[in-house]
């Protein structure tokens, strides 16, 4: 690289200004959104899920998720009477294009949509060596992709397998609970696209949110409760065989 003294003199101040902009960040603040007024989660109503894959496709469109990677996906469980502890689980292409027809035979079938559980005590944020992933004040687990090194420690730490290394950006990527939407008063793309209402965005700090009544009157479970992650993806109708 041949640089003249003149080019160098032009380059250095420009680089300094640019670097300052990176350090300061230039966020576009959402008007009327106060982080401390919200505590986001998700309600997943398993008996309503038909495995159409709308949520997976919507998420990929909304968040530019590369092919073969998933911020949300749908699994189909087949539990036979003889083997309740080792169900057969399939998720072809994340359930994006639906599932093969399930034959009416022994046992039961059901769909389980999976996504980041936005844990309040998330293992993934605790292992990050540089502070690139964190639980925001409104309870959403986010990744600062400008700060992430791509070490994949968080990918290993997530007990739910919800993170991946973005193949083009080489940094950790995951569900943001459509942070850019919920801060604007919209629901998530997966909830918007779900035809049966099997997914519902919930705000636990909003006293008017129907989630409070739902939690009072229904049996609701989280995935891997024994790990005490403070998961906020609440599953209604969750079978004991789901891992």
């Amino acid at each position, binding site marked *: 690289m041949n640089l003249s003294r003149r*080019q160098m003199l*032009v*380059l250095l101040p*420009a*680089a300094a200004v*640019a670097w300052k902009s*990176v*350090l*300061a*960040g*230039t*966020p*576009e*603040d959402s008007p009327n*959104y106060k*982080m401390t007024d919200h505590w986001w989660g998700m309600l997943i109503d398993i008996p309503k*899920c*038909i*495995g*159409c894959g*709308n949520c997976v496709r*919507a998420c990929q*469109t*909304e*968040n*530019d998720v590369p092919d073969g990677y998933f911020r949300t996906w749908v699994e189909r469980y*087949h539990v036979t009477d003889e083997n309740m502890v080792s169900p057969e689980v399939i998720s072809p292409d994340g359930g994006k*294009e*639906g*599932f093969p*027809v*399930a034959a009416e*035979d022994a046992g039961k*079938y059901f*769909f389980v949509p999976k996504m980041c559980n936005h844990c309040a005590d998330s293992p993934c944020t605790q292992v990050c060596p540089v*502070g*690139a*992933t*964190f*639980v*925001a*004040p409104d309870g959403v687990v*986010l990744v*600062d992709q*400008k*700060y992430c090194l791509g070490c994949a420690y968080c990918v290993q730490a997530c007990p739910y397998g919800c993170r991946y290394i973005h193949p*083009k*950006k080489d940094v950790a990527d995951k569900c*943001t609970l459509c*942070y*850019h*939407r919920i*801060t*604007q008063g*919209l629901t998530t*793309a997966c909830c*918007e*696209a779900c*035809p*049966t209402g099997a997914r519902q965005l919930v705000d636990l700090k909003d006293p008017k949110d129907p989630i409070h009544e739902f939690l009072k009157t229904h049996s609701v479970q989280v995935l891997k409760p024994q790990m005490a992650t403070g998961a906020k993806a609440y599953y209604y109708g969750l079978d004991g065989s789901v891992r």
Partner: protein
Amino acid sequence: MSTFKDAGHLFRFAGLFVLAFLIFLVVRHYVVPKSFGQYGHYRGAAIGEIAAHPAKFAGHETCEGCHADVADKKKAGKHAHVNCEACHGAIYQHLPVPEQPKPNLYERFVVLIIHPMPPDPPLLRHAEDPASVKPELPDTAVLCIRCHTASAAKPKGFPQIVPADHYPGPPCGSCHQPHSPAMDAGGAK
């Protein structure tokens, strides 16, 4: 002073230590982003940057602003709770990315620093330019069976058909009106 008579080397060492600490503070001041620690052990500005990602699904309220007739028909039918973009796709569509001239060395250097992440391609909303951005008209032969093909895995109360037995041949849309599909509720075409 006799106490410190032979302690010169210690003072020099302490001086070096203080100097190193001052250098550390100066470097730290410039290297650690300003918003780091604003809310916790992370860069506070990152929250705003993530929130700035453009939305592509506008929500059914946006569609209903112009297509009130369809919304009314839908509200009375069995698809009342199915949002528009669940079938029609996102209202925002990516514009074709124009061919960029190859950046020169200076541009490459500055762009590399300001945009460490690849920028999002431009977006245009159907509502902003209905003529040039049209959501794809869904193919009912694909769309309907994705949800309604009979499968033991689906909830028992959900309406399901075996496509091969259920009037094979013409696409679903030739008999059913997708916005209000039940035949007995005036949904027939």
